[in-house]
C-alpha cells in the first residue's frame, strides 16, 4: 500500500488560502502586525507536523465497492460512476499537532493555538492535493474525477470507519465511535475515481 511521508516545508499553501483560513476576511494581505504571529505559528507547526498520505486502489466493476461497503448516492453517481479504479486516501499530520494546539490554549496563547490550527487544516489539505496532483501526472493515461470526501453531499461520514480500517497498519489514526470523527484532528480522507480516457479531437 503506497504511503509517503512529506516534508512539511515542501507543502505549499497559497497565501490567499491561508489569509482566509486565519480569519482575515477579504483583505488583500495579512495585516503587517500579524505577519510575525503567523510566521511564528508556521514555524511551530513545522516542528511538530508529520504529514503522511497513504492511499489504496480498488478495481471496480458495475457496482462501486470499497471492501464490502457499496458506494452509493448522488455524489458517487456524479463523480465516481464509470470509474475503473477508485483510489482511497488518508492524510494526517499526526498527534503532535493536536497536543500542541491544546497546550497553547491551556497556556493562554490563544492566538498561537488558533493560527496553528488554521495552518494545519490547510497543510493536511495541501499534502493530499500534492499526492493527488502527482497521481494525476503519473496516471495521465486515465481521467481522474473530482476528489470527494465522506461528509460531502450524501457521502456518509460513516465511511471514515471503513477507510481508517484500511490503513490501520500504516497510519496511526482512529475514528470515534458513532460520530466518525477522525483523531488526530488534522486528518482527512478522500476518494478519486479513474476512468478510461477518451481523447476528444479538438
Amino acid at each position, binding site marked *: 500500500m503506497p504511503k509517503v511521508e512529506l516534508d512539511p516545508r515542501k507543502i505549499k499553501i497559497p497565501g490567499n488560502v491561508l489569509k482566509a483560513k486565519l480569519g482575515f476576511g477579504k483583505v488583500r494581505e495579512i495585516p503587517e502586525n500579524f505577519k510575525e504571529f503567523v510566521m511564528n505559528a508556521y514555524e511551530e507547526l513545522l516542528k511538530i507536523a508529520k504529514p503522511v498520505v497513504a492511499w489504496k486502489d480498488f478495481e471496480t466493476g458495475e457496482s462501486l465497492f470499497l471492501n464490502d461497503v457499496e458506494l452509493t448516492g448522488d455524489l458517487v453517481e456524479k463523480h465516481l460512476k464509470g470509474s475503473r479504479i477508485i483510489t482511497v486516501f488518508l492524510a494526517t499530520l499526526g498527534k503532535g499537532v493536536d497536543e500542541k494546539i491544546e497546550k497553547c490554549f491551556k497556556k493562554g496563547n490563544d492566538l498561537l493555538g488558533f493560527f496553528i490550527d488554521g495552518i494545519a487544516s490547510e497543510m493536511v489539505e495541501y499534502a493530499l492535493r500534492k499526492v493527488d496532483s502527482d497521481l*494525476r501526472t503519473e496516471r495521465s493515461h486515465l481521467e481522474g474525477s473530482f476528489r470527494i470526501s465522506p461528509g460531502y453531499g450524501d457521502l456518509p461520514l460513516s465511511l471514515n470507519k471503513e477507510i481508517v480500517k484500511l490503513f490501520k497498519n500504516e497510519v496511526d489514526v482512529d475514528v470515534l465511535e458513532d460520530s466518525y470523527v477522525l483523531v488526530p484532528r488534522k486528518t482527512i480522507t478522500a476518494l478519486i475515481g479513474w476512468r478510461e480516457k477518451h481523447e476528444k479531437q479538438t
Partner: protein
Amino acid sequence: MRNRHEIAKILSEKVLLLDGAYGTEFMKLGYDELPEELNIKVPEVVFKVHKTYIESGSDVVLTNTFGATKMKLKKHGLENKLDLIVRNAVRIARKAAGEKLVFGDIGPTGELPHPLGNVLFEQFYENFKETAGIMVEEGVDGIILETFSDILELKAAVLAVRDVSKDVFLVAHMTFDENGRSLTGTDPVNFALTFDEMEVDALGINCSLGPEEILPIFQELSQYTDKFLVVEPNAGKPVLKNGKTIYPLKPEDFAVHIDSYYEAGVNIFGGCCGTTPEHIKLFRKVLGNRRPLQRKKKKILAASSPSRLVTFDHFVVIGERINPAGRKKLWRKMQEGNVEVVMNEAKTQVESGAEILDVNFGIESQVDPIYVEKVVQSLPYTTNAPLSLDVQSLNLAEKSLRVYPGRPLFNSSKVTEKELEKKINMLKKYGGVLIVLLMEKDIPKTFEERRKNFEKALKILEEHKFLDRVLFDPGVLPLGADGKPTEVLKTIEYISKAGFKTTVGLSNLSFGLPDRSFYNTAFLVLGISRGLSSAIMNPLDESLMKTLGSTLVILEKKELPRAEVREEKLVEAILSGRKDDAEKEVENLLKEKDPLSIIEEHLRPAMEKIGSLYDKGKIFLPQLILAAQTVKPVFDKLTSMLPAENQGETFVIATVKGDVHDIGKNIVASVVKSSGYRVVDLGKDVDTHRIVEAVEKEKPIALGLSAMMTTTVGRIKDVVESLRKKGLKVPVIVGGASLNETLAKELGADYYAKNASEAVKILKSLGR
C-alpha cells in the same frame, strides 16, 4: 474553422489547455525583435514555438499577433504590413496546430480612451475590426482579446469582432492588479456584469500577476458570470535580475494551483508571461481530461462606470440635473458643445450624494451627436458615477449605449411590444439596465392601468429573458394636473411586493407648484415606505437629501450615523496586544478607583467596543482573539482582588460527546472570559452526564455547547433533555459549523450564537 457552438460543445465536455508565452520563447531562440514581425521575417521560428506548445499538450494555440493592430504597429512603422503579419500568423499557427484549435490573439492598443487619453470609441473599434477581419478570413476558430486594462477599449474590441463574425468563438480578458482592479479601476464583478450580457462566449483574466494572486480575483469573477471561464496567469510576479526580467514560478509550483482554478470553474487554462513548454507539459498532466464543473451565477441588479458598481440593494439617488429643461444657460452651453459645464454639474451632484447621473440632452436634434458621444464617454471616467441615459432618438440612443464605458441605465422604454423589443435588443448588444416606464401612449392615472401595463411588460420581458435587467417607473404626473400620487404609491408597493426594483422621476410631481421641495420630500418618504428603490431627483436639495437619510435610518435601511468615538488608550492597548500597556493603564486606574469599578466602567466597555468592531467587520477574528488573550490576565488580576460573590457570573461550556473539534469552543471560552465572566471549560468530547453534573454544581448563568459535525449535533438534544429531566432550567447557547438558528431550536437549545461576540451579547442579555 470550428464555429462558436462547436467550441462550446467541446468546452461543455472538457477543460482545455492553452499555450504559454511567446515573447520569452523567441528570446531564448535568439530573437528579441518585435514578436509580430517574426511572422514575416522568420515564420519557421514562430512555427517551431507553436509546434513545441502543441507537442507539450496544448489544445489551443494563440496566433503570434498580440500587438498586431494598426495603432500598435504604427509605433514601430509597421502599420502597412498589418495584413501580411496577421495572415501569416494565422497560417503558421494553423499549420502547427493541425486539428487543434487556433485562436487569433488581439491585445490592447496601449492608448487610453478620452478623457484619460485621446482615443474615442470608434477609433478603437475600427482598429480592432481590421485585425479581426483578417483573422476570420484566414479561418481562426476563435479570437481572444487579451491583457485589456480598460473596459471601453475591450468593449470596442468585442463589438468589432462580433460585427466581423457572428460565428467566431470570442474570449474577452481583462488584466488586474493585486488590488483586483484594472488600470482604469474596473473590478472583476463590474467586468463580469458588463460583458456577461454581451455576445461574448468566454470571460477571463490574464497577465500581470501569478496564479496565486489571480486566484481570488478569478474566484470573484466566476461567481458573477455564466460564460465560459479562461485564465492565463504569469509564471509568478516578475523580478529583475541582472537587468533581465525573470518569471520565477517553476512548473510544479504553478501547477499546484490548477485544482483551485478547476474548483472555481475554469474552462480553459493556460499561461501568460514566463510560462514555457515545460509548464504546459506539466499542466497537461495535472489537468488530464477533466470535465468542467457546473457553476451558478449570483444575480445582482447594478449599473457601472469603469471604476464603480452601483447596486440596487440600497436606495439609489439618480441625479436629475444634467437636463436643460427650464435651464436656459445649460441648454445654451450644450448647444455650444461645452463639455465642462456638464462635468461641473456632474461633480456637484456626486459630491451631494448622487450615485448615478441621469443625462438628458433636451431637444436632441439641436445637439451635435459628437458632443453627446464625448459626454457619454467622458462623464463615467471623470466622476466615477454610472449614467442613466435619457436619450430619445433611437439612433442617438444606440450611439450612446455603444460608446458607454460600463453598464448604464437606459431611461426608458414604454410598454409597447415594438418599443420594448427594440430597446431590449439594443441593450443585449451593448449592455445595460432598462427603465421600463409603465405607459403605452400616455402616462396612466390609475393604479389599475399601471398594473395592467406592468403585467404586460413582465410578459414581454420574460419572453426576451430580460427580467433581471429592469427597473420599473410607474410614471409620476404633476400634482397640479390631477396627478393622483396615491395611485403611484399603490403601484410602487405592488411592484416591490412582486420582487422588482422601482424608480420615479420625482420632480415631475411638483411641476408648476410653489414649495416644490416639500412636495417632493413628502412623496419620497411615502414612496420609500412603500418600497421605492431609487429616484431621479435633485441631490442639491439639502432638505430632500437630509430627509431621505433620516427616512432610510427610521426604516432600518441604513445605519444610524455615529460620531467617531475616540479610541481609548485601553482599547488601543488591548487591540494591539500590548499587555504591558493594558496593565499599566489599569495600574493607573487603580490609584483612583476600586477593582470592580474598573471592570464595570473600563474593561467590560472596552471589550464590548472591540466586540462591536468585530461585528461590524472593522476588525478580524485574529484581532478579537488577540484582544481576548491580552485582556484575560488583567481581568484575572482584578477579579482576584474581589470578594467571591463579585467575581462574575459563571458560564459553563463544553464540546459534546463524539466531537474533538474544539477550536471554536476555545475561542468562545476565551472571549467570554475576557468579557468578565467566570468560565468553566469542561473541554471536548464530554459525556452528557458530566455536563449535567457541572450545571448542577456551578449553577451557571448559561450553558454553552459546541458541536461541529453533523454526526454530533444530535448530542445537543441529549444534553437538553437530560437537563430538563433533572429540572435544571439553565439557558442553553449552542454554536458550531453544522448548526444554524432553526436547527438549534429544533434541538431544544434556547439560543444560537454564530460567533464568540454573539455569545457574549446573549450572556449580557441574560444577566447584567
